[in-house]
Each structure stands twice: as C-alpha cells, then as structure tokens.
C-alpha cells in the first residue's frame, strides 16, 4: 500500500486533508477527481498519518438507516432482554475519518443524516424504542468523479474544504504514476507518515494559540462577498482553514500563504460570480470601511509592524486573495454552473418510500399483507421478550417466540415519479407567449408534484443554442427564480434543444428517474444547425437530418414525447406534427393554450 507522501499529485487535496486533520471542526474534505487519479488511495492513506488508533470508517452507498445511525443490538437483547443500541457507522467514525467514495451518488436522506451529524457532532437516536446519543465528530472525506454528477449543496455547506477540480493530464506525471504504482520503484517510506503524524499533533497543540488579525478576517469576508459566496458559514471555515494552515507550519501568526490557501480551499469552490473589476469595486468601499478602532489596536502591538504584509488593509488582502484564485475561477464557476444544473437530487421527494421495490432502507411495524417480512428486525424486536415469553408459554418450544406485534416489514426507497422536460421555443414573435404558457404549466405541475413525486425541467431554445433554464427540480421556489429570466427572440436551434433534452433525460436515468416525458412547445421549425458551421439556407437539409436523427435517438432511449403546437392555424405548416411522428409521440394542437390546458394535456399524455 502506498503511503500518503508516496501518492503523486493531488497536492492541494493533501494540503486540505492535513488542514482537516489539524482542525476537526472544519468538517472534512471533498475531493473531486477523475477516475483512477488515486483519490480513494489517498483517502485510505490519510488514515495512516493520523495518530495511532484513529478509526477509519468507510461508508457504503447502499447502507441502511440502522447501520448508519445505529440499531438494536441483537446479542444483548437475546442475552439480557435489554434494549441497547449498537453504534452506527456515524458513531463508529467518532474521533476518526468517515470516508465516502462516489460521494455524489449518496441518496439524499443519507446525506441529510450526514449533515445532521456534522452539524451536531453527535447522532441523536430515537429508534426502536430507544433514545440515545452517540458522539460523532469525525473528519468527513468524500471523493467523487464530477463526470457522474455533482454533490448536493447542503452538504457542501457543512464540509469546510473543497478541493478545486483540476484534471491532470501531464504525460510525465502519468508515466511516473504508473512507475510508482505498478513497478513499485519508489520505496514506501513509513517514516514519512510518522513525520506527518508528528506535525499534525504539534499543529493541533498550538492551534488555539494561533492569532489572526481583524484585517485578515475582514479580508477573507470581503473576498467571500466579492465571490458571491452564499451563507455565512464559509467565512468561519475560511478563518479556521487559515489558522490551521499557520499551525501546520508551526507559526503562531497567519500569513499571506495561509490566507491564500484558505481562499482556494474554502471560498473559490463556493464562488458564484466573477468579482467586479478593480475600478468599479473601489468606488463604494470608502464609506463601508470605517475601522479606526481596529487600526488603533493594531498600532498598540509593536511586534506587528516589522513585517510588510502585516500592514495590509482588508482591501489589500482581498485584492491579494482575488488575484490568487483568479486564474482558477472561471473553471470552477463553470463547474458550479454545471453542478447547479445537475443538482437534481432535490430532496427525498424524488425518492419515495414504498413497500415493494427499490433499496431496503428501514423496517417498520406492519402486517405481512402490507409488505415483505424484514426477518432480522423482526427477530431483534422479539428478542428482548424471549425470557418472559418462554416462562409464560412453557408448551411452546420454538427457538424464538414471535408474536404479531414483533412483525417488521421492509420499507424501500425508490426514485419515483416522472420527469417532465419542457422544451420551449423561445425564438420568433410568439416566443413570449409560449414562455409564459410553459412557465405556468411548469409551476402548475410542480404544485401537484407531491402526489406523484414528479420533477420538472425547462429548456428554452433561441439564438445559437438551447439553454437549461430550470434543471430537474421539485421546488416551486427554484422554478420561479429560474423562470423569471425569459430570454426570447432570435433563431430556432431546435436540434440543440433536443440534444440537451436527451442528455438531461439520460443523466436523470442514471439517478433512478425511469420515466421521462419530453414536452415540446414549438412549431417544429428549426433553423439553426447543431454543428457550428456557416448556417445558411443550404443547411436546411442538414438541419432536417439532425432533427430526424435526434428524434430517433430520443425514441430509442424509451423517452415519451409530446409536441404541443400553439401556432395559430394559418401559419402552421405541419412541421410540428412531423416532429411528433419522428419522436413516436403525441401531437397536440392547442392554439392560444392556457397554462392549465398544457399542464392537463401533459398529464394525460
């Protein structure tokens, strides 16, 4: 097994892990990396640089609730008749590392339990008739491949350090990795691990004494604001990361490098916008920064003045930090935009609990007529009563006496419901009208989404290409926010929209959404080709071919389609109808349709 220092690359990830080891309250580290980049090897190696006996717990994706949170201990129940909770994985990771591979594929309820444990530092158990509390402060290490979808933001908020995603592709580097891993040319050096262990222990010890100046705190906060970081928790994490970085270097003062590292690991991955340019930014600052008190206290301490960077104002620090993250910003913003699109696991609503199919997550009391027997939970339930029952029921010689009240049946969680992808023509003169209709229909469907656990997405197309205005979601709030922007006019890139719709549907399929309905609101007349060549009139044939091919793919993928033609009669030339045929879907002619009518039509399709 490779040791922590042996693993090539992932330098920033290593730094982040070290910081998390120094200050456990940072919550942990999230490492996005491509397949085979050594991310999980790194996570496992991480356990070895922590002090002896630190637990390392790996959380499997298909975990049941009682294994995660804790459940009744069968042995104790049988032996003593007492109800004692056996610790779940969250509690077992206390004081150590909880490792989740393919973090982005974790289901939303398990995520919610993780968030809860992270925020409390303990697990509250109110299960199986037992009330208990287990300590659960751990370093969460999550690795995932961004190509498989992003992580839910709620969790990102609780995990302090997020390593910016950089796909490494340097040839030399790749060759060296192969040499090390396959040919074992490099001697694993256990001493390096020992050294790091020592560093971490020392850093933990001095951490409470590390100082950060008010200006530096302000600088970090201003940077967070400039980058549009949501929520106030990131500020706290940024300061903690800077302090931990200083402690790791054995310093009692935070310096520039610490602040930069904090900005890269905490603020950069949470950025939602590119900061305004220097000139426009400077203007409104003066009235906002009256800090005479702080600069006074500054001059009180003489030893602060001997180094250059100690005199920096919050504005200067902000500038420094923005410079440091600037080059990586566009890449990460793009990731974020992508993640916002893929952030489709909108709560447990998309994953219904049921008694028949899906992943077995928990058991509950019930009759066998209602569901399938959960054997172990039933036995566990009966266990405490065995001594009494045996005493009062001497003629019954069964090994275990089970009564009706003991019966536990399985509850499964399954991604359920239909995904409706609205693909709306936002080009031309009727666009505004169509967008309003689509918007109304989307909101209407979402309001009824409870019952069916449906999700809705909206793709608009105009100009050069299609745009996903609303990623698959169940939230009326989000839908409203996303749909407030109604860009209209321009060309008609129908093919681009079909492609995006197909991609969205496929992506959701990998997440368990098995039923998808594409709802086209268009007259079916695409006039922009998918390939970015010169689009002139001669491309008409090409466009038609593209549309036909895409329609076939959609049909083959098993996706249902409906084409709603809202064009008034005399303009209609049958393109929409042909599109419907190619898609193998329904064609509905609804001139001047109301949102309700569209919603109703879609539901009945």
């Amino acid at each position, binding site marked *: 097994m490779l040791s922590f220092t042996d693993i090539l690359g992932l330098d920033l990830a290593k730094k982040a892990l070290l910081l998390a080891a120094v200050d456990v309250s940072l919550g942990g580290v999230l490492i996005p990396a491509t397949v085979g980049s050594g991310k999980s090897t790194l996570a496992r190696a991480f356990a070895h640089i922590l002090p002896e006996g630190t637990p390392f717990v790996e959380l499997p994706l298909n975990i049941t609730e009682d294994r995660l949170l804790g459940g009744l201990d069968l042995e104790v129940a049988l032996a003593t008749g007492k109800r004692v909770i056996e610790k779940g994985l969250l509690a077992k990771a206390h004081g150590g590392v909880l490792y989740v591979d393919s973090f982005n594929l974790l289901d939303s309820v398990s995520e919610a339990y993780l968030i809860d444990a992270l925020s409390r530092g303990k697990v509250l158990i*109110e299960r199986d008739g037992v*009330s208990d509390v287990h300590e659960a402060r751990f370093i969460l290490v999550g690795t995932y491949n961004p190509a498989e979808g992003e992580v*839910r933001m709620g969790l990102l*908020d609780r995990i302090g350090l997020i390593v910016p995603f950089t796909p490494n592709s340097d040839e030399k580097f790749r060759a060296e990795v192969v040499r090390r891993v396959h040919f074992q040319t490099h001697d694993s050096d256990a001493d390096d691990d020992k050294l790091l262990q020592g560093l971490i222990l020392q850093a933990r010890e001095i951490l409470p004494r590390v100082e950060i100046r008010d200006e530096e705190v*302000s600088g970090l*906060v201003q940077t967070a604001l400039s980058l549009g970081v949501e929520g106030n928790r990131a500020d706290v994490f940024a300061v903690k990361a800077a302090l931990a970085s200083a402690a790791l270097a054995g310093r009692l003062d935070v310096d520039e490098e610490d602040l930069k590292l904090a900005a890269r690991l905490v603020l950069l991955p949470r950025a939602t916008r590119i900061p305004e340019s220097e000139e426009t930014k400077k203007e409104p600052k003066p009235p*906002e920064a009256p800090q005479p008190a702080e600069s006074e206290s500054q001059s009180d301490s003489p030893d602060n003045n001997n180094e250059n960077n100690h005199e920096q104002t919050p504005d200067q620090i902000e500038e420094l930090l923005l410079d440091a993250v600037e080059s990586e910003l566009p890449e990460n913003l793009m990731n974020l935009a992508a993640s916002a699109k893929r952030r489709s696991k909108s709560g*447990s609503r998309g994953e219904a609990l049921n008694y028949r199919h899906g992943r077995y997550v928990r058991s509950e009391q019930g009759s066998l007529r209602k569901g399938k027997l959960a054997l172990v939970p039933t036995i566990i339930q009966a266990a405490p009563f065995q001594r009494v029952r045996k005493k009062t029921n001497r003629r019954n010689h069964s090994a275990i006496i089970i009564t009706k009240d003991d019966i536990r049946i399985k509850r499964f969680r399954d991604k359920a419901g239909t995904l409706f992808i609205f693909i709306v023509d936002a080009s031309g003169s009727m666009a505004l009208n169509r967008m309003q209709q689509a918007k109304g229909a989307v909101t209407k469907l979402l309001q009824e989404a409870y019952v069916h656990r449906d999700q809705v997405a909206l793709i608009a197309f105009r100009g050069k290409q299609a745009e996903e205005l609303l990623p698959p979601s169940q939230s009326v709030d989000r839908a*409203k926010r996303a749909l407030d922007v109604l860009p209209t006019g321009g060309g008609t890139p129908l093919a681009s929209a079909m492609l995006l719709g197909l991609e969205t549907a496929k992506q959701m399929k990998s997440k368990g959404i098995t039923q998808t309905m594409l709802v086209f609101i268009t007259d079916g007349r695409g006039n922009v080709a998918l390939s970015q060549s010169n689009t002139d009139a001669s491309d008409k044939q090409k466009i038609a071919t593209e549309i036909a091919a895409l329609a076939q793919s959609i049909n083959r993928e098993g996706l249902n389609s409906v084409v709603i033609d809202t064009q008034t009669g005399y303009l209609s030339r049958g393109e929409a109808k042909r599109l419907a045929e190619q898609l193998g879907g329904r064609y509905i002619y609804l001139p001047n349709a109301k949102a309700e009518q569209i919603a109703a039509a879609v539901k009945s399709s």
Partner: protein
Amino acid sequence: MLHNAVSFYIKMTMKKTSPPKKKSASRSHASKSTEKKKSPVFPFTAIVGQDEMKLCLLLNVIDPRIGGVLVMGHRGTGKSTTVRALADVLPMIERAEGDIYNRPLSEIPKEELHTRKAEHIPVPVVDLPLGATEDRVCGTIDIEKALTSGVKAFEPGLLAQANRGFLYIDEVNLLDDHLVDVLLDVAASGVNVVEREGISIRHPARFVLVGSGNPEEGELRPQLLDRFGLHARITTINKIQDRVEIVKRRREFDLNPEAFLEAWKPEQDALRERVVKAQSLVPKVTMPDEVLMKVATLCMRLGIDGHRGELTITRAASAYAAFEGRLEVTLSDVRAIAVPALRHRLRRDPLETIDAGEKVERELQAILKVEETV
C-alpha cells in the same frame, strides 16, 4: 381552545397499572441529559442579525397559541443554531414532580393528586431527528418494566416530552411522510393517542412546532405549511461588519465557551426576564376595534382563506405589544409581525413574480397610507 386546561386522562387497559409517576430514569435518558449539559450552546443573544427569525421564536415563547414557526432559508445562515440557542432563554414552568407529560398539578387526575408535589423545569425543547421511528415519536411499551415486573407500561415518546414545550424538526421538508401525518394529527388535536402492543393510552401533547429547512431541497406539504403560525425567511447576511462579527464571536466561543457564555450571561438573563414579563402581560393586552378592522381588511385584500390569518396576526401582535411592555396593540405592532404571519397563507399564483412577503408588505403599506390620509 388549545391552551385551555382540558383535563386529559390516561387509560391503561392493562392490569392494575397506575400511570407512571417518576420516570424510571433509564440509562439512555440519563446519558442524554448529561450529554446535553456537557456541550455548551452558542447563546441566543450573541447571534448576529436574523431578527425576523429570532422575533418569531420569542413571540411563540410569549404566547404558544401563535402556533409555531417555520424557518426557511439559505444554508449556513444559522437556522438550527438559533433554534437550539432558544432553550437557554426560555422561562421555567411548573409541573407535577417527575411527570412524564410535563403536566401541571391542575391537570393531574384527582385520585393521584395527593401524592404529587410541584416542581419547576425549563420549558422543554425536544429535537426530533430525521431518522426517528414512529415508536419513539409517539411512545411505546416500556420493555424493561415489562421484563422486571411483568407489567406492560407505557414508555413515553418525544411527543410526551415536548408537551408544553417546543418540538424542533430540522430539515422538516425531508421528514418522512408517515411521521408528518402523525405530527399533523397530534398538532391539530393536542392529544397523542397510542394503540399498540397491547397498550392503549391518551396523553396531552401540546407543543410549539418549530421547523427549519432549505426551500431548494424540496417543498413542504401544504397541510404542514398551514400548521405553522409564523413563517420566517432568512437570507445570507451581506454586511461586512456583521459577517466579521459573526466570525469573531464564533471563534471566541470555540476557543473558550465557558468564558463566552459568562460574558453573554447578562444579556441572556435580561432577555429571559423580558420574556417572562411579556408572558404575564399577554392576557391583559387588548386590541382596539380600528386595528382589528385593519387586520381584517388586510387579510381580505390579500385573499386569504379562513380566519387563521387574522387570528395569528392578533395573537402575534398582542405578544409583540407585550414584549414591548405595552397593553394595547397598535398598527405598528401589526406591521412588525404581519409578513411572517401571512407569508405562507397567500394563494399560490403560478405567474406571480414577486415574493409573498413583499406582497404582504405592499398591501400593508397601502392600508397604512389610507390610515394617514383619513
């Protein structure tokens, strides 16, 4: 009325069981309470900003009939920190000694009254974790008692513990549907009925429901939304000074919680006193007819169905007046609480672009303007 002293009874269909007098402090419970004492909680008064949420919580302490608070907002804005901090500024209540349902002496059945004394406990705040199972929420058979004495006794659940206190659900929009059903049932009736495993029991369960969540992670069921008296919305604080202050206080607290709590003790005590005083004033607060008419007009103009809107405003405004130390509700009291009282009661319009809170605010302005010109 929910708050009236309705006498509840406990009926055990099993042998000669008397209602459990003292909680036979089971191991798990004992460890839990010591646990809670061990970890210090960030003080309520030291939380920067988020005034709407804080006010909504305090008003519910002053008058539990307001019907709870739903707090929705961005992640990382201190929702759960604030709710968990509330416990420390809550006043004491009187209950029959060791009563598992926190009943006052006046609700204890006469036949066992002579054995009971009164004691004072802080208003209970009960955390309902997401993974809770129904038997722990509603209560179930006390297994240890069953084994040691052969008697089937009732082991109360979270609903019993929360009686006369607060029941807090974080990530309320992710709560399992069948638990939501149970909660809706109990919240409406104020009584928890358990029929299972050969036990039949009814006990009072009147609590202030506090829920929090992030609206982007899924919608709340409309019936549940309707249950909440007030609906606070919170957003990220964007003032640099405030954000720096948040970071500094957090760090101070993390480094030395005891010293931090000590430093904030006067503020905490003052707030608690103010709440206690307001509680005593609430029954005496009156609302002039003109103000009441304005409230009715407001609700009508906003097209709010039913009367829960007016009732909530009246209660919340009265509590607010009491909090301000006054005995008469003014229009400014109504103003202070109208948005959280009505925000979640507007009919949903798919094409509406403005936020519900803004809409309430706008109507409010219009009505107040009429007031000025008259």
